[in-house]
């Protein structure tokens, strides 16, 4: 699938809460078929502190309207600038980038695990799985109830479980201590979130012989395999998160 560089029009900038917002972007040309797990490289114009592009996952796609969404967490200067964009503004993107999550085997019991901005790619993945006949469970972790995003769309995909660190909603504690892991037996887990969370989930999966794919959030400069900055140490040597990933099967990683 050819990569493109294009100015996309923002048709909605929806603030979910203090931390998260969703940009809906409209393309001039017909969108390519995106694969769940793919991402875009966003040019944040203007500030000397946002020199490089920012990688952001594809959160949702509407081929009918020829639009797609990015769910973004404000973590620094770049994402903050993006949060202030208005309808009608243009945003320069390189897309679509990266590999994608793999389909599970037939009839497998699936869990999607997301923490923080790691929930972003899981909506698109969840919808994709559903359209292929799967009914995954979904587990999200947030710092507290104020950070929780709207869950309606996820509820249409499958059951949604929550943890918050302060117990203000869902189970209290880190995502990895949710009771789902002692009760449920899954065949495959898809996971995206902070490194420490993904490592913990990967550890759990290895111990329990559960298939697991994680989507890494390594620092990137180019996003297209040219700079070799985003590498991850795998059983096959250093691979690029941007073109060989961002999705890796945990059996490939040296975790």
């Amino acid at each position, binding site marked *: 699938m050819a990569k493109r*560089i294009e100015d996309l029009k923002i048709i909605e900038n929806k603030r979910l809460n203090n931390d998260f917002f969703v940009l809906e972007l409209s393309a001039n040309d017909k969108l390519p078929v995106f694969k769940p797990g793919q991402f875009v490289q966003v040019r944040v114009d203007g500030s000397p502190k946002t*020199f490089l*592009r920012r990688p952001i996952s594809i959160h949702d796609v509407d081929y009918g309207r020829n639009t797609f969404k990015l769910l973004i967490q404000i973590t620094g200067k770049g994402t903050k600038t993006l949060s202030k964009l208005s309808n009608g503004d243009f945003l320069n993107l390189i897309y679509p980038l990266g590999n994608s999550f793999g389909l599970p085997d037939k009839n497998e019991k699936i869990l999607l695990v997301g923490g923080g901005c790691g929930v972003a790619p899981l909506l698109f993945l969840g919808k994709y799985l559903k359209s292929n006949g799967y009914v995954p469970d979904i587990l999200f972790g947030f710092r507290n109830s104020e950070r929780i995003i709207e869950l309606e769309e996820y509820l249409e995909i499958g059951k949604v479980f929550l943890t918050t660190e302060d117990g203000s909603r869902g189970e209290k504690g880190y995502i990895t201590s949710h009771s789902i892991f002692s009760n449920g037996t899954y065949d495959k887990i898809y996971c995206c979130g902070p490194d420490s969370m993904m490592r913990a989930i990967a550890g759990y999966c290895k111990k329990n012989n559960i298939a697991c794919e994680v989507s890494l959030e390594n620092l990137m400069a180019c996003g297209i395999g040219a*700079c*070799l*900055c985003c590498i991850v140490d795998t059983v096959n040597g250093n691979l690029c998160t941007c073109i060989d990933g961002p999705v890796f099967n945990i059996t490939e990683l040296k975790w």
Partner: protein
Amino acid sequence: MVNLGFSIGDLHFKNPVLTASGTFGYGPEFDDFLDVSRLGGIVVKGTTLEPREGNLYPRMAETPSGMLNAVGLQNKGIDYFEKNIYPSISGYDTNIIVNINGSYVDDYVTLAERINTLDKIPAVELNISCPNVKMGGMAFGTNLDSAREVTRAVRAAYSKILIVKLSPNVTNIVDFAKVVEEEGADSISLINTILGMSIDVEKMRPALSTITGGLSGPAIKPVALRMVWQVAKAVKIPVIGMGGIMTTSDALEFLLAGASAVQIGTASFIDPQASIKILEGIEKYLIEKGFSEIKEIVGYINRTK
């Protein structure tokens, strides 16, 4: 129509816009964004004799108007290049230049000899300026005797166009330029990255696994431009300028200062089409200013009072 062509020795370049080593992959990474064959040349990834894994992650940090990298010459080695990469890129209708690196003088010599045999590679760029490897690299480029020795040895073993890429991490760049010119380099390219560092204040630790790394991007442009100007005045061989070129105007600064050509580096990460846009911009500038050949503006500021 303006004439954008220039030559290094007997090697003709159709225009003065090349891409810089380590920032443009081998070319195919950019096929979706531009016609690589339109460029004056591409300098492919730093290549070593043996395969190298490079440095540990994290290898990159963003800085004001720039970035630090500590890639450390990750590449699959010359065998792999010859067998797998060379065939796939030799169809490009542009000058493909291989950037060669070693820990010892012999490494450079062997690499140059190997590349001498590759028909579609008319030139090598001798990288004596990589700040991200423990042995070789910048060590050669910050010591006059070593710079002389490695240039002499490669020159003796290699008959095609030899470009030597200088390190900016020196007191007097002109000394190095003169030494490599004396030893038979056909051209000098500069600058490689400037040694820098960044600390994550929240985590209280260095941003890079290697602590220090190479600074590139617009932040270094004034320093690069100064060095290119100094060197271009001091040597007779063509100079290829780079360091922070993002726009047409940036590229023109280097040409006006005396560079015969430019390389586009970090800019390609931010805009993969930067090199082509700059090429088009230079042509437009020449037309607007009423010049018909690129060489009329090369070193222009040195010719007027």
